[in-house]
Structure formats: structure tokens, C-alpha cells
């Protein structure tokens, strides 16, 4: 493990912002420090594409603006962008062979917002192919390695699908990063890598220009060093966008202001159904500790019930593949991306898609096609949509009694890449605690809160009512202060 010793890469987004505005450092210095760290840590495979020249060009522009006192909210701050966000003129692959070499002629709304706020993009981060995976082992561009190590020294997964973003933020290869979360793809890798990850309320960030996986579940969010940084990033990423008909016109509040408001008088729900059979001791203990920390800060702890929790994963594995099979129909080898020739048009489609999609993507496209096919639609797809309603209702009822819900983020710590389960269903269980929030469209925040027996990071998850990210920032900040978690860079 090569450590790139540099104080600059240990700063939080908020600290770097302050240092830039007080002219203690320049954006070029900061960007160069990150580019240096990236170059020393290529074995982690966190980036699919590094955009060093573009980054330095933007950093120089930012330094001019800073000098003139025209700084925008994220002026000169170097970020990593998950390779699911279309970036104009810069290769966007979604981790897939089928999009290798694709240079979008337009910019996603979220990255447009981040650029407009003055941030500097260091490159595009690795991810599970089309965001389908929980270990970053389905990328065409290779596995991502978690910077954390267990005592046996084996290479660990950073989680997925936003595994490259998580590893980059944890290892100091970006100040913060964007992720997307369809079933846990921000929160699970954040927990595995010891960083903060936020899935906002569905509709908070525009999906326009994000390569679509499951449109009714996908949501972009920040992956950061701490809770304050997540608030700063979300404020810029979130916006109403007429180009996404599901984007919300609700006001985007100043999230940073919520952070220090504390949790006095808040009611915190502990859902008994999240106590899974065989859940490791260290995770159960951390969960109890989390509840204790919130209680000591003045919150009231209340046991609640979310009775349909156990049906969340099976519901997800009907709906997400169904939406994916329809969204991925566009990859045809005709208009963009990979083309594998064939004698007939159908041959061309089949050859292109069979060579261009990896095994996990093909599995999900097949399941999705099956559950939507004539004769099975009602039994699978419609049934899952009904159970989804029951899951959402569970949360509606719970939020009549409590303000926020506390759970662990994952049922285990990071596992070794060579221990990956061979049964896809066992792999899917990684997301058992994160998927319900996607089905109900609710915001969820993962905060690093402690270590497993093997010395690996564990996260606590906070779930809030729709459009109340503020309550997550309030409770998340209290957990962060109490846990005093030491990040990978601080060790």
C-alpha cells in the first residue's frame, strides 16, 4: 500500500473551501495533490478515466475567479464523478463494454450543477456494470480494491455499485464524489469504505443524463468525508429540472444549516424487522451504541415495526430488472457504443448485446424480460408493484410515530473479493437493509460509526421522511461526533 503523505488530501470539502477562500492554498495546488495521489494508487482501480489536463485547466480558471473574489459555492474543489453520469465530450461507460468509447454530446444535470458551482472534475470512477452489483466486481474495467485491509491482507471489495467513488474518497483520490443509489449503491460502499454516503429523496436530484438502470428507483447523491460535506454537495447537486418529469419542484433548503441543530426531542425509530437472523454481534452492538448516542443527545428511542421488510428484496428483484430490461433495450449497436457485426439486423443486435453486456447484466435483462412477458406480467410485475405499495405504507405509518429511523447500513463488513458468493441471490442480500428506502423513495444516510472485529469500517443508516434530508443531517452529525470515527486517511 503506497501512502501518499500530503496534508492537502486529508482536508474535508468544507476545510478545503475555507483554505481556498482564505488564499492559504490554490486550486491548482489542491488539484495537483489529488492527481499525485491518484497516480500513486492506480492499483485500487478507482478511476476508469483520469482527466488530469481538463482538471488543471479548470483549477487555473477557479484560481482566477478566487483571486477576483468571484468564487462560486464549490469553486476549485476537486471531485470524482461516477462513470454513470454523462459528461460532455468525456468518455462515459457505465462500467460496460457496450459503451466503451462513448463520449456524450451533453452534460447530465447533476454534473452540470456541480460544474456551474466551480468544482473541478478529476475523472470518472469505476463502478459495477450499469450499476448492477454490490461489490464492484461486474465492471468491464476490472475490480476496484478497497484501501482498507483486513489482518489477512486480502484484497477487499469497496462495495458497489459506486465502488470507485467510495474507494477514491476513502483513499484520498478525490475530495468528494458523486454516486447513484438504486438499491443501496451509495450507502453500502460508503459503509464498506468508512465514508459518508447519502441517497436523497427520490426526485431531489435530476436523473437527466444519468445512464438509466431502474428509473423509478435511481437517485444520485454525494459520497463524502463527513456529514457537513454531504450537505454542501447535495445543495449543489439538487435542483428542479424540467427535463426529468420525476424531478421535484420542492424548495432545496440550505442543508448545511441543519447540521448543528442537534436531536433534542427527536423521536428515533428502531425497526425490529431489521434485526436479521445471523447478523454479526459487532453490528448489533454498534446499532445499540448508535441508539445510545442519540439518546444521550436528547432523542427518544422508540421500537417500531416495518412488517413488510422481508419482502423488499424480492420486490426489488422484480421491479429493478424489469425497468432495466426496458431501459437497456436502447443498446443496439446502431446509434452509439459497441457494434459487433451480423448478417441480419437481428444478428447485429444479438451479437452486440451478447458481447457488450456482462453476465450479471444479461441475467437481470433476462429476469426483467421474463417478468414483463405476456402471461407473467400480473403474477410478477404487478404483484411486486402491489407489495411495493405495502412497503411504502409501512414507512408512512412509522413516520407518524417517529421523525427518523436508525438501522445498520449493511449486514456485514467488506468481504474479500475472492470470497464473493457464487449464488447471485446471496450477493443480493448485501442490500437487504438499504433497498426498502429506494422502494419507498425515502432519503437515507450512511455514517461510518465503528469497526468490525476484523478492524473494518461499519456504517449506521438513518432513514427519513420524503424531502426531509435535514433530519438525516441533524442525526447524522450527532452520530459522527459521538463515534469519532477515524477514516482510512487518519489511520
Amino acid at each position, binding site marked *: 500500500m503506497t501512502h501518499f503523505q500530503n496534508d492537502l488530501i486529508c482536508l474535508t470539502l468544507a476545510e478545503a473551501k475555507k483554505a481556498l477562500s482564505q488564499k492559504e492554498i490554490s486550486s491548482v495546488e489542491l488539484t495537483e495533490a489529488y492527481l499525485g495521489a491518484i497516480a500513486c494508487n492506480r492499483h485500487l482501480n478507482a478511476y476508469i478515466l483520469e482527466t488530469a489536463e481538463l482538471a488543471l485547466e479548470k483549477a487555473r480558471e477557479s484560481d482566477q475567479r478566487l483571486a477576483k473574489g468571484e468564487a462560486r459555492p464549490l469553486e476549485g474543489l476537486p471531485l470524482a464523478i461516477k462513470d454513470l453520469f454523462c459528461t460532455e465530450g468525456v468518455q462515459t461507460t457505465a462500467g460496460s463494454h457496450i459503451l466503451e468509447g462513448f463520449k456524450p*454530446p451533453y452534460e447530465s444535470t447533476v454534473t452540470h450543477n456541480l460544474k456551474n458551482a466551480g468544482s473541478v472534475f478529476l475523472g470518472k470512477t469505476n463502478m459495477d456494470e450499469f450499476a448492477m452489483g454490490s461489490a464492484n466486481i461486474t465492471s468491464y474495467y476490472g475490480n476496484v480494491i478497497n484501501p482498507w485491509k483486513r489482518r489477512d491482507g486480502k484484497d477487499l471489495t469497496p462495495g458497489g455499485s459506486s465502488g470507485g467513488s467510495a474507494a477514491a474518497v476513502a483513499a484520498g483520490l478525490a475530495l468528494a464524489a458523486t454516486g447513484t443509489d438504486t438499491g443501496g449503491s451509495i450507502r453500502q460502499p460508503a459503509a464498506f469504505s468508512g465514508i459518508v454516503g447519502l441517497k436523497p429523496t427520490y*426526485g431531489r436530484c435530476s436523473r437527466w443524463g444519468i445512464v438509466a438502470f431502474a428509473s423509478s428507483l435511481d437517485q444520485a447523491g454525494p459520497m463524502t468525508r463527513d456529514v457537513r460535506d454531504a450537505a454542501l454537495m447535495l445543495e449543489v447537486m439538487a435542483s428542479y429540472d424540467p427535463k426529468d418529469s420525476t424531478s421535484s419542484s420542492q424548495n432545496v433548503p440550505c442543508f448545511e444549516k441543519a447540521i448543528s441543530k442537534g436531536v433534542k426531542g427527536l423521536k428515533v425509530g428502531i425497526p425490529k424487522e431489521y434485526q436479521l437472523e445471523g447478523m454479526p454481534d459487532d453490528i448489533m452492538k454498534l446499532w445499540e451504541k448508535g441508539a445510545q448516542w442519540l439518546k444521550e443527545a436528547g432523542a427518544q428511542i422508540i421500537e417500531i415495526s416495518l412488517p413488510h421488510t422481508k419482502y423488499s428484496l*424480492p420486490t426489488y428483484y422484480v421491479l429493478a430488472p424489469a425497468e432495466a430490461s426496458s431501459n437497456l433495450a436502447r443498446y443496439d449497436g446502431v446509434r452509439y457504443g459497441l457494434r459487433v457485426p451480423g448478417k441480419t439486423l437481428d444478428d447485429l443486435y444479438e451479437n452486440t448485446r451478447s458481447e457488450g453486456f456482462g453476465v450479471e447484466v444479461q441475467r437481470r435483462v433476462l429476469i426483467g424480460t421474463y417478468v414483463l412477458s405476456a402471461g407473467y406480467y400480473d403474477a410478477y410485475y404487478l404483484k411486486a408493484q402491489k407489495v411495493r405499495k405495502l412497503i411504502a405504507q409501512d414507512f408512512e405509518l412509522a413516520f407518524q410515530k417517529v421523525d427518523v429511523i436508525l438501522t445498520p447500513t449493511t449486514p456485514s463488513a467488506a468481504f474479500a473479493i475472492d470470497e464473493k458468493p457464487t449464488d447471485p441471490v446471496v450477493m443480493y442480500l448485501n442490500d437487504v437493509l438499504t433497498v426498502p428506502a429506494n422502494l419507498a423513495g425515502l432519503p437515507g444516510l450512511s455514517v461510518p460509526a465503528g469497526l468490525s472485529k476484523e478492524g473494518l469500517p461499519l456504517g449506521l443508516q438513518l432513514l427519513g421522511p420524503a424531502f426531509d434530508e435535514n433530519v438525516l443531517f441533524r442525526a447524522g452529525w450527532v452520530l459522527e461526533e459521538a463515534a469519532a470515527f477515524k477514516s482510512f486517511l487518519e489511520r
Partner: protein
Amino acid sequence: MSLDQETIKRIATLARLKLNDDRMSSMQQDLNHILHFIDQLNEVETSHVEPMAGVNTPSMPFRKDVVNDGDRVAKIMENAPEVACNMFVVPKVVE
């Protein structure tokens, strides 16, 4: 519910995927594991439940029926594997 290989071939054709025989048996096993897992949903009583297609979007927004984008032929063709006369080239479809 279990899928036989013939059904999987039919789905693969619908999805425009080619499944060679060497991949068929492992794919069949995986798909049946997943379907078996999904079958749990049959335990849930849903006869009086409305299906839910999305969240937080009480109604679809409307916009004026006017052209607000266009004239981007070059950009649209930019990433195409094969182009002729501003058109995408595909194998012959009509005899």
C-alpha cells in the same frame, strides 16, 4: 416456478441476447434461484392493494406542445459506429 431451457431461449430472443449452450446451464440455475427467491411474494395478501409505479410524483407535469430542441444531427451521429449521408447504417432489412 422453474424455467426450462426452451423458455430461457425464448426470453433471450425477446431480449435480443444470444445464449450459447455452454452458458445455458449455469444461466438456468441462476435464473431459477432468483425466481425461487422472488416467489416469496406470493405469501403476501395483495387483493385490495393498488399497484405502485413510482414515488413522490402525484401527477405528471405537462408542458406546452412546442418544439424546444432540435437541429443537432451532427451531435446525434457523432457516436454512431457507421454513418452514411447523415443516417445510421444497418444490415439490409428489406429484400
